[in-house]
């Protein structure tokens, strides 16, 4: 595990907001020279502190009007292997994230669709036909905000 000082935390806060900034600009904002900022960013990257950069696209402008979170309970535990379910669900293009969870559901899926009829198609043809799928709960995403977390 990597130890962070206040300057590292300041760098991470800047990069969370905009991942396209150059080391010189990040350095300027936290009061470091370009080489010093670059060295710190390199160290953070090597320690795996930053996940791969993700493109932020406007879903609505691209025609994806709804995001739905599904809680999925497997019906026949022990009979269907988790690997089979995971392999099949990961291959569905509309499924953006798959999380294995502990609690009232076994998996949590994030799904994008053009509209509700399109979501229904994905649900019926792709999700309900997955090996071992049991009870499914759907919640339509209304808003989402990412917070800086404990970097303060």
């Amino acid at each position, binding site marked *: *595990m*990597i130890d*962070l000082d206040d300057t590292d935390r300041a760098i*991470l806060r800047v*990069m*969370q907001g*905009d*991942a*396209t900034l150059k080391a010189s600009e990040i350095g300027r904002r936290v009061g470091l020279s370009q080489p010093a900022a670059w060295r710190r960013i390199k160290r953070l990257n090597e*320690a*795996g*502190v*930053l*996940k791969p*950069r*993700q*493109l*932020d*696209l*406007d*879903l609505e*402008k*691209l025609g*994806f009007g709804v995001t739905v*979170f599904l*809680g999925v309970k497997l019906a026949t535990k022990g009979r269907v292997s988790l690997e089979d379910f*995971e392999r099949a*669900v*990961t291959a569905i*293009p*509309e*499924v*953006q*994230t*798959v*999380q*294995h*969870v*502990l*609690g*009232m*559901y076994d998996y*949590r899926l*994030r799904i*994008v669709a053009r509209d509700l009829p399109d979501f229904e198609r994905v649900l019926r043809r792709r999700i309900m036909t997955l090996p071992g799928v049991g009870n499914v*709960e*759907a*919640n*339509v*995403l*209304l*808003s*989402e*905000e*990412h*917070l800086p*977390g*404990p*970097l*303060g």
Partner: protein
Amino acid sequence: MLNDLDRRLLRHLQADPDQPVSQLAEAAGLPLASCYKRLERLQAQGVIKGSRAAINWAALGYSVEVSLRVTLDKTDPRAFDEFLAAAREVPEVIAIQTFLGVVDVRLSVIAQSMPHYQEVYRARILTLPHIADIEALMQVATIKEAQSLPL
């Protein structure tokens, strides 16, 4: 609006946002100049909003991540606003989502250990206003996290 070439370009770009434009142009089968022009236009139209660097909290010692599904007491019209404003003040809350469905709000909460989680949960989560019910899902593993769009 977007045509097939734009979609192809975005498909290649979201697979690797850090690649040089020359490589992107080749992958998408576009001349370099027109690739630049399209990227500029997609940015100007707001289709490409930017890019995010998400933090791998596990690498910073936050090994526990819990998804809290919160139902609010909606008899009070200020319930949503007051709950959200208070939740934003909790440092261990890294994401807030609101829903239409069984669940009203979901909080992603991280902690360094189970005792630390319990401390956060008791001192900072249970004290949030207007909570009617909370269910917790503990994250075991992330199987897929591409968040790429089926373009």
